[in-house]
């Protein structure tokens, strides 16, 4: 029997609201099955299972907000129930909360790398005021069943009393995403990054003349749905280059660097209503350019519609952002913790360029790496950028 828990969809997620169950007890599931929809600061996310079995029991009803790590369902996979279940993807081990003398919960856990690779586990901390906790104990209310209305969703006395009176919990599902909540999530992650990560920055201007000429000729033979955008080349070149500098691909957890198991590139997608989300394109170094392009189109569309999956969030081992044709010329991006690097591509521009001692107009792009000095120095970062540059000179080999 497997305990299926609320996954951590990124290091900054503490809780999620169950908005839809897509399975019922008795249903068969297999690895990759989408079983529920969870509302988070990043919008509605489809969550997946990574086991084969039968849904035995659903333990969290629709509308309830629960901390990361809470058991959502039991899945019967033929193994006996165990107090220490197998490691779940993207889910911190259940450390359990301890009640201290103040009545506050202690923050259990913070990230361990899951066995399935490259997935960051976030910390779960039940936010509840001491007086609310005491009242909950007196009234026999489980605080985990309560949606907090205080700061950052913390549970206040009034919330406990509302639940004790039997007033209904208010489901918080909104179509798409809540721009204010997403802004708060971005602010929290970026503040943490600026506070904890000693960034260094390196920029290399890369000649894209050959790459764009190849792209134009390749695209001219293809129908529109098969054509590639320059972004696909930039992403693939970044993924291949990261193979040679593995210390820029992974997570910094518990005071040390854990290399990524695979190169899973978070692709920064800007949302029209304001906001940013970086779903992972898994094993980008092993995908063909066509596969990368299809994956890009797919995640961008679903990010904007608010139908990303749990495996796509919190599983990236590095981030790439490309500003596109209407962006600025360079971007020095902020690392998304617990990752240790982010590569930013500016707008492709035409500039004078020296070729064989003569000046020519060339299409160039500025690639800027932000690296984490706790893990690497500018030397490794410089190697990454020069590898990206070299790979983009031979686009037919990407």
């Amino acid at each position, binding site marked *: 029997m497997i305990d299926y828990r609320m996954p951590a969809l990124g290091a900054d997620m503490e809780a999620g609201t169950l908005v839809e169950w897509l399975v019922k007890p008795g249903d068969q599931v297999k690895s990759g099955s989408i079983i529920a929809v969870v509302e988070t600061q990043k919008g509605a996310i489809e969550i997946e299972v990574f086991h084969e079995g039968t849904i035995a029991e659903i333990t969290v009803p629709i509308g309830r907000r629960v901390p990361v790590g809470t058991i959502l369902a039991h899945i019967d996979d033929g193994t006996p129930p165990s107090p220490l279940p197998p490691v779940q993807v993207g889910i911190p081990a259940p450390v359990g909360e301890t009640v201290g003398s103040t009545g506050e919960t202690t923050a259990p856990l913070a990230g361990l790398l899951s066995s399935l690779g490259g997935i960051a586990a976030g910390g779960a901390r039940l936010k509840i005021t001491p007086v609310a906790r005491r009242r909950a104990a007196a009234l026999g209310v489980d605080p985990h069943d309560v949606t907090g209305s205080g700061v950052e969703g913390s549970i206040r006395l009034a919330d406990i009393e509302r639940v004790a009176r039997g007033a209904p919990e208010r489901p918080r599902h909104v179509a798409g995403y809540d721009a204010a909540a997403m802004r708060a999530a971005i602010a929290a992650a970026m503040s943490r990054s600026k506070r904890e990560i000693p960034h260094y920055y390196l920029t290399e201007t890369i000649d894209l003349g050959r790459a764009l000429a190849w792209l*134009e000729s390749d695209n001219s033979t293809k*129908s529109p749905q098969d*054509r590639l955008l320059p972004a696909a080349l930039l992403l693939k070149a970044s993924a291949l280059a990261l193979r040679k500098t593995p210390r820029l691909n992974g997570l910094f957890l518990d005071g040390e660097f854990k290399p990524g198991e695979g190169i899973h590139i978070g692709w920064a997608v800007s949302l*029209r*209503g304001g906001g940013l989300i970086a779903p992972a394109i898994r094993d980008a170094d092993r995908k063909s350019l066509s596969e990368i392009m299809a994956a890009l*189109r797919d995640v*961008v569309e679903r990010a904007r519609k608010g139908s990303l999956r749990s495996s796509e969030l919190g599983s990236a081992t590095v981030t790439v952002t490309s500003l596109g*044709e209407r962006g600025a010329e360079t971007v020095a991006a902020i690392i998304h913790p617990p990752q240790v690097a982010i590569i930013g591509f500016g707008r492709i521009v035409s500039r004078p360029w020296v070729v064989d001692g003569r000046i020519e107009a060339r299409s160039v792009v500025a690639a800027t790496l932000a690296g984490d000095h706790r893990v690497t120095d500018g030397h490794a970062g410089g190697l990454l950028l020069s590898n990206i540059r070299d790979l983009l000179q031979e686009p037919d080999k990407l």
Partner: protein
Amino acid sequence: MTQDEIKALLFELIGEIAPEADPTDLSENEDMRSALDLDSMDFNNLIIAIHERTGRNIPEADYNKLFTLKGAIAYLAAPPAEIKS
């Protein structure tokens, strides 16, 4: 297709690609990429959608003729043979 039909189709396709955008506010000589906040992926999706709906395979070299509403309507109203890429 008449010009009005083309315009209606473009509005419909843009509505699917960028539901938040309101193409009815678009003036015909405006670059719709900046007016409607369409990035290269969105514009590419528009070209794909036009291909799927009309069968018209627009070469990449002609994309710049479709950046404005006026240009896109003129391009799509003309038979493909008359367009030099």
